């Protein structure tokens, strides 16, 4: 620790950081633009000028940029010095010379870092009377609006988009005051993390297009801390509601999980909440027609589903409370996970690994610390996108170690990049097709699923002779396996990533063998990141036994052991073959389906009950690490929809707190669950925390058209938050921080005021609770790694493919996401395309059974393999075998085809 003196006051500081960061960590106000807590300093904007003195006798001092000056021991600086203040004011005056008179019609207004910094610097009157330079804008896709006039050329956008997120299609163009940030030509921003530009840009150049369609100022949004339900990472979000509609989702800082950034699925995939198609009232099917059912009769319906022959099918996209309520209603032995058998087996195996002390399941922050990574079979960018962004930081650890060796501080961003050039920590990707991370991968190996398992086994065997050398008969590149094993064994923090999206147990077993071998070498827990596909896959897995898969439930129904079924927030047609589900429904005497939106499953049900979405209920979710997080209710649902747990519980359960307590008592795994609920004793006088900001407007007019007599504010009897402006603001308690705001800091940059230190934990922060205890090291290798899904007979070995926009069921119902989705496609190699005489974009039928997909010829596909993306359930992958035969379907054009598909190895010739 160093001591620095700022304006005569002594502070403890970290000498490894720069002065700007340390001043902000101390809660001091110092304006800045180009510096970002995650991206270090480049000293481009000259805004953070302070006066630095050589020693106590120096009364002149000199003006330095705080972001480019280390916080070395004994530094004496002054923020309030007149010369420094004048410099900051003049710098912002020059930055504002070309800034247009747009604030009233700018989406950033009211949460604009430039507005805040201008006020903070004291510039208030325009003296420059010459002409403003202007720019033409570009169309950047359905997510982001572009308004280049507003640019102050801080370079944050390209530093984020290119340097941090690895994008290739946004760049600085032209020079001097002509500098322009955009694409080489108009078009969709390709990065899966483009939405963060909205938060990274200090002004309104990049704004949220989806939000703008139903725009409200930040202060008018009713917000609450929430958790993204797009995948199993569990990023923290702040959704905002106005006039009964969910308006937008922004990032909510969590030092352990998502930090400052979200993926575009999480940020833009919430529109289904406002969908007109939402189920609004309980319905009963009478003579094949759905009729509405009075809410009062719901309890009678539920009462029919008790006793003998009733089973409950849970859901990985439903909360712990909903799943637990169903499990309790039907009995633990009659509760099924509702996940396809193959994936269910993987999930349970991964849960088992999560309890083994030989491994640790790293969070995003720990992933960023890895210095050699192997991704085994998982297309991370499309199944757990935030992890892919973390990997892009992890490969830069090589650069950081080089910098440290050369005495360059890590925050000197430009210098560190210049030093390392393209020298990256080794990342090896074993996959079915070229992934979006290939540009940073040192080694790639593309093969069928059985080939990938064989590769995994070969790597494990190179590390430890105890691990089986091969599974099946696939021949692999032994030299490559040796190289990857060598890289992993030499690393300080090796990381193995595997997942269950492929539904292949062999991959998980192989990954576990590699991690175990590394554990034996290192004698320290090895990071084994086991990714699950959906938001609460882990919670559901912890609630069920391995045998309680969907297949087991359907068998029980077809054997007439079960005659009644409750299906919780689950479209079974996405998880089993159509014939299987159809025959199950035909056998059932009675069925009750609870869901958010109508699905094929709700169409088959006798009773359908509407349930609330993530933003309309308080709930807990367990992410892939076993981290349970609480997501608060943001707004109320005005239809008859209720949280599923409320439909499924008796009247004695009034809050989720009751269920959480019961769940913790009932299930050993969930013993710590109640700790995630806020301790009400910490709130002054039992006062609630307002969901609405102190500037919330229109209270006495927004409903006056209906009745001029204002209704009483709705009372929230569920949580510590209030549906009003009243209570103790989050300024005092960041554990329930919705929208970050601090005096003088209206933008999201105000988050530094809530952090213990910059990039640190939030004050009184809540990062979730890791539920899974690592009991003991089993020490056993998987000796019989199963290599199912082997290519047999004719046809191409089939593996599943995923898309960030489309593979998630609910976000795929969102308009902006739909614009980025493609219909079902099948990737094949150019050689196979030639043999089958297929062209890019041709329609093919799979096995001649009527399922139609577009052909996507990819130059890096291994001949003899194919990867199928089933679209938004256009094709049911559970109806396909392990190999697939393609026949041209004649119709050359149809659907949206593969237009807009972004892959790195799109085969161009002959297209």
């Amino acid at each position, binding site marked *: 620790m160093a001591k620095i003196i700022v304006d005569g006051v002594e502070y403890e500081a970290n000498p490894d950081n720069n002065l700007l960061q340390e001043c902000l960590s101390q809660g001091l106000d110092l304006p800045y633009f180009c510096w970002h807590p995650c991206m270090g300093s480049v000293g481009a904007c000259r805004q953070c000028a302070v006066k630095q003195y050589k020693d106590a006798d120096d009364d002149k001092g000199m003006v330095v940029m705080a972001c480019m000056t280390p916080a070395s021991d004994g530094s004496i600086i002054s923020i309030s010095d007149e010369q420094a203040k004048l410099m900051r004011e003049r710098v912002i005056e020059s930055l504002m010379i070309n800034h247009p008179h747009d604030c*009233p*019609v700018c989406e950033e207004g009211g949460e604009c870092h430039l507005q805040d910094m201008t006020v903070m610097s004291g510039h208030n009157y325009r003296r420059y009377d010459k002409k403003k330079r202007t720019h033409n804008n570009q169309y950047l896709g359905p997510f982001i609006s572009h308004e280049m006039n507003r640019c102050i050329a801080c370079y944050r956008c390209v530093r984020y988009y290119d340097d941090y997120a690895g994008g290739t299609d946004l760049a600085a163009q032209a020079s001097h005051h002509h500098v322009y940030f955009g694409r080489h030509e108009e078009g969709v921003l390709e990065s899966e993390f483009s939405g963060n530009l909205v938060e990274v840009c200090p002004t309104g150049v990049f704004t949220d297009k989806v939000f703008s369609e139903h725009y409200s100022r930040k202060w008018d949004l009713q917000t609450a801390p929430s958790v993204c339900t797009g995948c199993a990472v569990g990023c923290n979000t702040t959704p905002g509601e106005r006039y009964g509609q969910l308006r937008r989702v922004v990032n909510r800082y969590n030092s352990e999980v998502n930090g400052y950034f979200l993926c575009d699925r999480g940020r833009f995939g919430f529109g289904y909440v406002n969908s007109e198609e939402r189920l609004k009232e309980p319905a009963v099917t009478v003579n094949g027609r759905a009729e509405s059912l009075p809410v009062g009769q719901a309890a009678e319906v539920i009462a029919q589903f008790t006793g003998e022959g009733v089973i409950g099918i849970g859901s990985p996209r439903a909360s712990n409370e909903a799943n637990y309520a169903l499990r309790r209603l039907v009995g633990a032995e009659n509760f099924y996970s509702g996940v396809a058998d193959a994936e269910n087996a993987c999930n349970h195996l991964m849960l088992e690994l999560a309890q083994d002390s030989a491994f640790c399941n790293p969070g995003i922050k720990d992933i960023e610390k890895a210095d050699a990574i192997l991704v085994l079979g998982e297309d991370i960018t499309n199944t757990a996108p935030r992890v892919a962004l973390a990997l892009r930081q992890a490969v830069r650890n090589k650069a950081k170690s080089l910098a440290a060796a050369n005495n360059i501080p890590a925050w000197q961003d430009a210098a560190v990049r210049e030093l390392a050039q393209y020298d990256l920590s080794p990342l090896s990707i074993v996959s079915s097709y070229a992934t979006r991370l290939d540009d940073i991968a040192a080694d790639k190996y593309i093969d069928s699923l059985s080939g990938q398992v064989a590769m995994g086994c070969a790597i494990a065997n190179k590390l430890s002779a105890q691990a089986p050398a091969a599974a099946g008969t696939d021949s692999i590149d032994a030299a490559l396996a040796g190289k990857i094993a060598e890289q992993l064994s030499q690393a300080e923090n090796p990381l193995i990533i595997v997942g269950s999206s492929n539904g292949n147990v062999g991959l998980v077993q192989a990954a576990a063998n590699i991690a175990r071998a590394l554990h034996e070498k290192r004698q320290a827990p090895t990071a084994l990141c086991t990714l699950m596909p959906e938001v609460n896959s882990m919670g559901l897995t912890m609630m069920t036994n391995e045998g309680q898969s969907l297949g087991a439930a359907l068998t029980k129904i077809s054997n007439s052991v079960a005659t009644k079924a409750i299906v919780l927030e689950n479209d079974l047609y996405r998880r089993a073959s159509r014939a299987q589900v159809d025959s199950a429904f035909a056998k059932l005497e009675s069925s009750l389906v609870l869901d958010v939106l109508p699905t094929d499953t709700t169409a088959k049900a006798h009773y359908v009950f509407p349930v609330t979405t993530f933003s309309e209920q308080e709930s807990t979710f367990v992410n892939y690490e076993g981290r349970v997080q609480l997501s608060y209710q943001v707004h109320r649902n005005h239809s008859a929809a209720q949280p599923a747990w409320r439909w499924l519980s008796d009247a004695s359960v009034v809050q989720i707190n009751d269920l959480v307590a019961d769940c913790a008592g009932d299930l050993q795994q969930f013993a710590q669950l109640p700790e995630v609920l806020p301790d009400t004793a910490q709130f002054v006088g039992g006062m609630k925390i307002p969901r609405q900001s102190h500037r919330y*407007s229109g209270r006495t007019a927004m409903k006056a058209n209906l009745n*001029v007599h204002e209704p009483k504010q709705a009372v929230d009897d569920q949580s510590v938050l209030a549906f009003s402006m009243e209570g103790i603001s989050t300024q005092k308690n960041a554990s329930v921080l919705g929208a970050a705001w601090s005096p003088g800091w209206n933008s999201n940059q105000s988050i530094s005021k809530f952090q213990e230190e910059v990039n640190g934990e939030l004050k009184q922060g809540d990062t979730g609770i890791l539920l899974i205890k690592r009991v003991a090291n089993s020490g056993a290798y998987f000796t019989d790694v199963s290599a199912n899904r082997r290519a047999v007979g004719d046809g191409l070995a089939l593996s599943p493919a995923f898309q960030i926009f489309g593979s998630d069921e609910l976000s795929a119902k969102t308009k902006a996401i739909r614009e980025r989705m493609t219909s079902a496609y099948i990737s094949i190699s150019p050689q196979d395309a030639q043999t089958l005489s297929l062209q890019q974009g041709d329609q093919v039928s799979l096995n001649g059974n009527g399922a139609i997909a577009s052909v996507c010829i990819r130059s890096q596909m291994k001949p003899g393999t194919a990867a199928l993306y089933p679209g938004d359930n256009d094709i049911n992958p559970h109806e396909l075998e392990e190999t697939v035969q393609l026949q041209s379907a004649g119709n050359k054009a149809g659907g949206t085809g593969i237009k807009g598909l972004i892959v790195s190895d799109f085969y161009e010739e002959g297209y």
Partner: protein
Amino acid sequence: MLKLIQDTLISQVVTLWTVFRHLFVKTDTVEYPDEQPYMFPRWRGRIILSRDPDGEERCVACNLCAVACPVDCIALQKAEKDDGRWYPEFFRINFSRCIMCGFCEEACPTHAIQLTPDFEMAEYKRQDMVWEKQDLLIDGTGKYHDYNFYRVAGMSIKDKDKGEALNEAKPIDVRSLMP
């Protein structure tokens, strides 16, 4: 004794004299409503929404009036025309809450919302004091005749492209190497 006379009797006489004198003074009472008082132009009464000199709605739905309003009696929603021009989809003032403070007018960056010298807003039903955009929007420019926000702002709209606003240079050709 003298003090008692001074405190009571003189005061009574003066009062009587003042009242008597007023019999001959010209009356101040105005026979409202037959006779209308003169209202100064900047008097803060009924709120209107004005149009710009081109006849388009001035309000850009920036929400600043709503946030400035101390009684929160203004509610509106932003919408956008095809050419990018912002306007309020609805604009509602609950006059039964309004205290005519004029903060909304001060906050308005486009001179759209203005207070007028009209004070005759009494209604029999309180619900009738909720005014929507069609009730508020007038056809003229109100007190400020010349100001046209979109001619100053940098955003392009129909018939005003980038670089055509007040004090703006032509858009940059990013592929040019000229200084």
